[in-house]
């Protein structure tokens, strides 16, 4: 999983051709810590098809504010520089999977 920041977000997410799944998280958030291994597994499963990264909301206020994150974990899939899907709260693996599959089918 790539560490995304206010500085590299444009390069690593918005300018990328592939869909990019971004996990907004923080160390103080229990459900984020539960989501992390699930998302790591998905990153391996979909290697080559989708890029996966995470934003620490504590360290990256600009991106967090720009995408109006008010609840974490929030997972957003970006494609072609735009947000195309968003899931809020900690969900099961199959729900994240469904989100990715829907994006790949498009």
């Amino acid at each position: 999983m790539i560490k995304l920041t206010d500085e590299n977000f444009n390069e690593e997410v918005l300018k990328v051709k592939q869909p990019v799944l971004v996990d907004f998280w923080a160390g103080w958030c229990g459900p984020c810590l539960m989501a992390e291994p699930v998302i790591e597994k998905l990153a391996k499963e979909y290697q080559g098809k989708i890029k996966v990264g995470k934003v620490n909301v504590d360290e990256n206020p600009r991106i967090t504010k720009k995408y109006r994150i008010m609840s974490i974990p929030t997972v957003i899939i970006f494609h072609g520089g735009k947000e195309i899907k968003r899931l809020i709260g900690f969900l099961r693996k199959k729900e994240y999977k469904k989100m990715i599959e829907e994006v790949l089918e498009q």
Partner: protein
Amino acid sequence: MNDLIIVGSGVAGMSASIYASRYKLEHLIFGDTPGGQGMLAGTVENYPGYVSLPGPELMQKFVEQVKHYGVEVNQANIKGLAKIEAGFEVKTDKEKYQAKALILAMGANFRRLNIPGEEKLIGKGVSYCSTCDAPFFKDKIVAVIGGGDAAITGALHLASFASKVLIIHRRDEYRAEPAWVERLRQNKKIEEILSNEVTEIKGQEKVEVIVLKNPYQGSQEIKVDGVFVEIGQVPSSVLAGQLGVEVDEQGYIKVSPGMATNLPGVFAAGDLAAIEGGIHFRQFITAASDGARAAASVYQHLQGKAPTPSWGK
């Protein structure tokens, strides 16, 4: 065949696993979230042995202790539970597992308000996890709905970020520990609105206003930036229903003081279990105690004994 399968990996499930390991029961433990609801707890100050520590940290210690006995939480998604001739079968997406006994410890989920605007504004100011989302409300005004420990601790946590916290509770007194209520009342940023209810959450892009059932300071509408819903839980007993385990009118699994359900060989522990004649009290320590007793009962059951009553001879 395994001696035991534990379904659920919160406090109750992991405590059951630790005891099962010490009873030398061959067992598996399933759960999609190691730590369960314990991961949502902010500061835990009533678990003996620790004066104060964050829920996720305490849960990490549970996971380590389970692992210490060579047991790993299996995070497979459980499709169903069934009775088979020599015991029970647990079906996941990919495989089937058998055991002579089951401990059901799937816990509970947070309860929603089910009022207009709530669903639409989730993640846009409506939150069910104050420990997760409080820092997003720095210098803002937020409402916390509820009157239990989670609501009060949530309000206190929020008060260290927000400029004002309104706690709204439908009764005129709290269910929370008096120690928390005392701290709530000492906090100048927190305002109490008792015997009142939120009937609607309004906002376009984000939460803007809450509507109250009864006027507060002359108005039924209050401007807020966030709404934290902490109104208790609903038991996750769907899987139990498939087995034919008896539940009470609220969906909690009925158990004896030895944590036995109506089905021989099936035990339940933690937040989804309701002990006959017991009180509604769901804590880290009660879940841990339930798990320990369930494991001890499984041990006795596998030896062909009924759980030893703790009274009488």
